[in-house]
């Protein structure tokens, strides 16, 4: 008998910000929608363990989509005439239009890294449409990840992005998980990681927005790995302290990519937060 996973991939055509997109997503499970947002320069494959976890899919309809330019989601038309630079407005619009176009109601939105950042804005701007957010490696403001070598004609951008992010894993995370994430990073298109970092390190600043979040209307859980040096535990703590009623946990032994680098350790933390979303 074939060893098939319960994960199914689909393409969704949607309009966002006046542009048409062909978006790839994977889903598994039934129940409350759980939308998963990948990290910069990566794609929804990072959530394959969540999609395959029956303890989650028994209660949640897990949906992991690839942003345009990432994974199997195409760039929009005329992409060759623009420098790829993600912005807060475009990113937020794509997430909102993904759940609205699919007809998904009251989702939990979970994101990691730049996804963990934007979920704070999702909560600030759409708190009556969603159940809550789970922010992995979240920060309301981040600096220092950009450099010109990330998109340079004399450097293999995929290898550099993959190595540049590899150290963000916890040092004791299983090598297979860390290497898997390396592989995903090595596959992003030219300049895509740098374009995401533009959003994360130049455009992104939600320090005022998060003060609007009302955790009676929208639950907020923030989980950050002890070894994350991009969004450090202290950076997440600053955001958490600005959101009354927010749950915040530092995950021991974990780095910046909990769902892929060390799922067995991460899932205990995640299940607890998902239970709080019920």
């Amino acid at each position, binding site marked *: 008998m074939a060893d098939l996973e319960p994960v199914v991939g689909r393409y969704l055509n949607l309009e966002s910000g006046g542009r048409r997109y062909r978006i790839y997503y994977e889903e598994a499970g039934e129940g409350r929608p759980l939308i998963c947002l990948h990290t910069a320069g990566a794609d929804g494959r990072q959530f394959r363990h969540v999609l395959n976890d029956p303890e989650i899919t028994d209660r949640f309809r897990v949906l992991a989509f690839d942003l345009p330019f990432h994974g199997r989601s195409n760039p929009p038309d005329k992409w060759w005439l623009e420098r790829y630079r993600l912005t807060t407005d475009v990113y937020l619009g794509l997430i909102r239009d993904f759940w609205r176009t699919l007809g998904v109601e009251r989702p939990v939105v979970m994101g990691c890294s730049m996804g963990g950042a934007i979920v704070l804005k999702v909560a600030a701007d759409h708190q009556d449409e969603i159940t809550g957010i789970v922010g992995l490696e979240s920060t309301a403001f981040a600096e*220092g*990840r950009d450099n010109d*070598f990330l998109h*340079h004609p*004399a*450097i*293999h951008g995929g*290898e*550099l992005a*993959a*190595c*540049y992010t*590899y*150290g*963000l894993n*916890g*040092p004791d995370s299983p090598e297979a998980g860390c290497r898997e994430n390396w592989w995903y990073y090595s596959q992003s298109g030219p300049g895509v990681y740098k374009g995401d970092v533009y959003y994360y390190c130049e455009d992104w600043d939600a320090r005022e927005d998060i003060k609007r979040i009302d955790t009676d209307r929208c639950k907020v859980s923030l989980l950050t790995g*002890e*070894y*994350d*040096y*991009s969004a*450090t535990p202290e950076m997440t703590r600053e955001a958490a302290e600005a959101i009354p009623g927010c749950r915040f946990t530092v995950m021991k032994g974990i780095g910046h990519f909990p769902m892929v680098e060390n799922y067995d350790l991460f899932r205990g933390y995640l299940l607890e937060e998902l239970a709080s979303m019920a």
Partner: protein
Amino acid sequence: MSAPPTPEWMERYRERVNADPEMQVIGDWFSLDFKLAFEGEAWLLSVREGRIVQIVQNPRFDRPARFTISAPMRVWTRFVRPDPEPLYHDFFAMLMRVPEFEIDGDSLAAMQNARALHRMMNILKTMEPLDGRS
């Protein structure tokens, strides 16, 4: 009490790099000389096709290096150990968060070889701690 690496320690490092199966896969294009500086004590590593072919302690001016990775011993000792604390657990972590950990010179050449260089730094982490016992 920390101390810079001894020649024997560096020789063991060379053996470990040259025996590493991953370096044999990824090192084909990594051919240059670079220095590791441990608080003023510098070691030139001459790398050819991913193998360290020569190590020179405190090289003279006639042995140029493409780039130098340097830090005080109090930083190196926190990196070269089996249980590094956060921010000291990785080459790129220290480049971002530890100001005293520096790369000088042709950093473009370093990043062109990021995969093999990063692997060499990860092998360095596995060496005996630089706490004076090496």
